[in-house]
């Protein structure tokens, strides 16, 4: 700036610095006095308190694990419980020689090499004053043996704890999920104050999705221990908050029936109540035993499960993507009516095959001789492919896919477990984007019968069927119906969440399609006629058979000749009772062959049990909170005897 300031004035600067240095010294002394005051407070004023606390005893701070919430089915059957057992815990800072101690312990109690390896791993990632589990689920004898020899093992003790148990083993495992020990990565990502290494955390299914509710909150305990680390007394305690109990909308017995009906086959059954979106059954076969995972599964068993060709850990109900086959025909028929491109009373002649203009290729009907003249109702009843080739072509792929999308075929449903996949409704844009090819008319044809690129999951089929049954109203499917506070017993019903409804053009069209689907079951020519026998309610449904591999143009598909793995999948969708639908079912039997023969009886069994055994006995009417605002006119609450 000004010229006169460019010359340093050393004396002035020295004095300036000296004054600041003195100030610095004074501030330092002042702050030190602050510290001394604090120290005086601790060491003189509160000396007695602290002296007592430290004198030969120690104050130990321990987390107290909360009790995990129980899981019940809709009728109060216990699906996941906590059983008490003892485990061996070691506090490493109180143990001089870990290896020697372990060696000595092995003489009393069975400790496997896997246990030791895991223990050593936990040791590294935890503080030395934290107890680490060495072996869990001690038998009574082992507990007794240790108790007698306890004095030899400072820093080691048996501690009671709860472990998770699934009394029904694999039943409903894909919906229920299981818990396991928390891993390093999980500890990083979640609120780690509520968890410690070795705690249980939900890994899949409901156990995981509702982990926050089930877990509760950790409590804190201040205990006084002697020099050996033995607890003398509890100084104070912040009680843990137990997790909430959950009531699922699943029924244990219905689930059993669904799984048994699938038998030896791989496949899935999804049953939903259209009134509130409750998932009544979510079966995926084969299943596996979740109890194996709770204690920590050994690698051999795990590899066996993972590498099994039937893939038991794969949740087919929400992740299996299959071509829906003929089950989409009602939806396509409805598209034709809503867009006004067909007259339901006009018949098309089906000769067993169909050809496009200017194309040599014959698109075949499953019935080689053809169905003869069929109108829309007959085409649905007998599942005529040729009618729907034609209808699909008339609609065009754009209108077709546009109509199907609101039914949820290209979205996830939002069910309350994770891992859901969506199917695929092919569109022109999709094909251009993923395969960089234009759309061919032949592909429209096969989309019209639910083959080709078209894929759906069993859950999507069930929810789309429910939407059809309820005249477009859609609810998010959910497995958990209510929570219960274990202390107060207060039960809170969770409300249903509506999804975006399917726009309804003319409700008469919907009624028409539903009538046709009813005839699929109840008319003699219906492909699912066999399940109408003895039914005390009207069922609307549609069978489907989806190709696993194609056969040449003129070959005949003979199921017995084709290896089981390559046989068609058998599908069925349906809902009942037709006038007031309370259950919508989607069944897929992998490589089952015929939808009518194999898949529909499963749906019938499930419907029977729910409508005849469960609903009539449900004392509670559907709570008002569960009835969404836009329910169609023709649904009512459960009949009360």
């Amino acid at each position, binding site marked *: *700036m000004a010229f006169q*300031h*460019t*010359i*340093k*004035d050393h004396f002035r*600067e*020295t004095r*300036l*610095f*000296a004054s*600041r*240095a003195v100030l*610095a*010294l004074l501030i*330092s*002394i002042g*702050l*030190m006095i602050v*510290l*001394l005051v*604090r*120290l*005086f407070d*601790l*060491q*003189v004023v*509160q*000396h007695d*308190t*602290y*002296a007592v*606390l*430290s*004198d*030969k005893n*120690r*104050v130990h*701070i321990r*987390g107290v694990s909360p009790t995990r919430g129980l899981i019940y089915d809709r009728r109060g059957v216990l699906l996941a419980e906590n059983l008490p057992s003892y485990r061996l815990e070691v506090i490493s*800072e109180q143990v001089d020689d870990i290896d020697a101690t372990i060696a000595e312990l092995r003489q009393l109690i069975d400790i496997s090499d896997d246990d030791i390896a895991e223990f050593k791993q936990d040791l590294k990632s935890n*503080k*030395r*004053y934290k107890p680490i589990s060495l072996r869990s689920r001690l038998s009574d004898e082992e507990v007794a043996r240790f108790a007698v020899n306890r004095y030899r093992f400072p820093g080691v003790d048996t501690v009671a704890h709860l472990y998770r148990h699934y009394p029904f083993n694999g039943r409903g495992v894909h919906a229920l999920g299981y818990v396991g020990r928390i891993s390093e990565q999980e500890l990083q990502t979640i609120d780690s*104050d509520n968890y*410690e290494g070795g705690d249980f955390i939900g890994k899949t299914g409901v156990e995981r999705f509702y982990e926050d509710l089930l877990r509760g909150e*950790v409590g*804190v305990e*201040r205990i006084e221990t002697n*020099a050996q680390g033995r607890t003398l007394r509890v100084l104070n305690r912040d009680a843990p908050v137990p997790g909430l109990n959950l009531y699922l909308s699943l029924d244990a017995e219905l689930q059993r029936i669904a799984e048994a009906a699938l038998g030896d086959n791989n496949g899935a059954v999804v049953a939903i109540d259209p009134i509130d979106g409750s998932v009544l059954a979510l079966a995926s076969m084969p299943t596996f035993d979740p109890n194996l995972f709770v204690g920590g599964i050994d690698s051999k068993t795990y590899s066996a499960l993972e590498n099994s060709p039937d893939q038991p850990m794969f949740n087919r109900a929400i992740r299996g993507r299959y071509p829906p086959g003929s089950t989409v025909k009602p939806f396509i028929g409805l598209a034709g009516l809503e867009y006004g491109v067909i007259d339901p009373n006009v018949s098309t002649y089906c000769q067993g095959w169909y050809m496009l203009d200017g194309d040599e290729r014959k698109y075949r009907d499953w019935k080689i001789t053809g169905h003869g003249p069929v109108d829309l109702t007959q085409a649905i009843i007998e599942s005529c492919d040729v009618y729907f080739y034609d209808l699909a072509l008339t609609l065009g792929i754009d209108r077709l896919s546009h109509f199907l999308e609101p039914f949820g075929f290209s979205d996830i449903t939002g069910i309350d477990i994770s891992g859901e996949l969506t199917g695929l409704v092919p569109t022109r844009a999709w094909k251009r984007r993923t395969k960089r090819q234009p759309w061919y008319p032949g592909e429209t044809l096969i989309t019209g019968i639910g083959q080709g690129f078209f894929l759906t999951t069993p859950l999507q089929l069930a929810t789309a069927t429910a939407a059809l049954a309820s005249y477009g109203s859609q609810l998010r499917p959910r497995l958990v119906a209510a929570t219960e506070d274990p202390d107060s017993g207060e039960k809170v019903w969770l409300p249903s969440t509506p999804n975006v409804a399917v726009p309804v053009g003319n409700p008469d069209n919907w009624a028409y399609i539903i009538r046709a689907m009813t005839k699929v079951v109840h008319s003699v020519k219906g492909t699912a006629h066999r399940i109408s026998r003895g039914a005390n309610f009207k069922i609307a449904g549609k069978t489907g058979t989806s190709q696993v591999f194609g056969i040449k143009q003129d070959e005949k598909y003979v199921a017995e000749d084709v290896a089981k793995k390559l046989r068609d999948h058998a599908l069925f969708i349906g809902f009942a009772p037709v006038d007031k639908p309370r259950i919508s079912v989607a069944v897929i039997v992998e490589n089952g062959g015929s939808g009518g023969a194999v898949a529909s009886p499963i749906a019938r069994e499930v419907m029977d049990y729910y409508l005849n055994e469960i609903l009539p006995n449900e004392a509670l009417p559907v709570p008002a909170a569960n009835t969404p605002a836009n329910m169609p006119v023709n649904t009512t609450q459960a009949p009360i005897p």
Partner: protein
Amino acid sequence: MSLFTARAEVLQANRRTLADRLHMDVPLLLCLLTLAVISLFVLYSASGQKIDVIWRQAVRLGAAFFIMLALAQLNPASLKRWTPWLFTLGLILLLAVLFAGDTGKGAQRWLDLGLFRFQPSEMMKLAVPMMVAWYLSDHPLPPNLKRLAIACLIIILPTLLIAKQPDLGTALLVASAGIFVLLFSGISWRLIIASSAALAACAPVLWHFMHDYQRQRVLTFLNPEQNPLGAGYHIIQSKIAIGSGGLYGKGWLNGTQSQLNFLPERSTDFIFAAYAEEFGLFGILALLAVYLLVIMRGLLIASQAQDSYTRLLAGSLVMTFFIYIFVNIGMVTGLMPVVGVPLPLVSYGGTSMVTLMAGFGILMSIHTHRKLLPR
């Protein structure tokens, strides 16, 4: 002043004593040695009487003292000349760490140089105040606003780079070292108060923009005892140890060392609690007295320094030393949040010891290289 200049004349003429030849400042050296001895005694007890811990600490102390000796031989003028180079090198290394650094314990702080690992941020604890002093010293003090702004830039740049590693603790220490230089350079009190107020005003704005979980983290950080299973555990144990020491302490080796459980990570920071337990309030008074002597001697050396660069640098080094003490003891007694600052020279190991002793070496160099100034 004239008495000192006379002594300096005589010393310059004779250069007889060993201390002079080694460029050692005796009072400072004695205090530091006292601290080193205290360190060994306390560690012996706190480690559960493990000789090899003491041995390792002694080796570290020896190395640190050697570095102090080496730096004391340097002429401050040379140090001043090298300053911009060192600072630039430091910046480059910091950038290197960010892009090619080793992630030890989840933060990129180290450069693995094969033989050993080097923490450039540690070096910046010295390089930043040196650079700021270098920049400000060739012009009249206090600096005008423009020069002040550039000085701030010199501080902010490495601070941000270190904070990005992320190493917030070291970043703050580096920034504070630079800020001390600014404070000593005589900027007006009005300016100091205004900028403090501005910084304080930032806090509620920052608070407003934080997410809930970030706020929770800050609250937990500020009040660790709310978190008895996590960071609060050590504070609780530490207070018990300190409080139980009383006026006279339990005596050497009589602390319930199980109280603190010599954990390699935290014991470096909580060693004061072990000292307090064994030597009581009077022991603490003695320790603080030694620290105070170091500070007084340091500030005296700074005041007697003969040019601005050395003055400013020395002042900053001494106050940084004080900050370590204050923050560590504050943390251990539950007054301040847990930040991971070791107790100078007494804590077990750490690169901080080397940096601190290097700083003292510079102080001694400044003091013992004074030339006679014609009046």
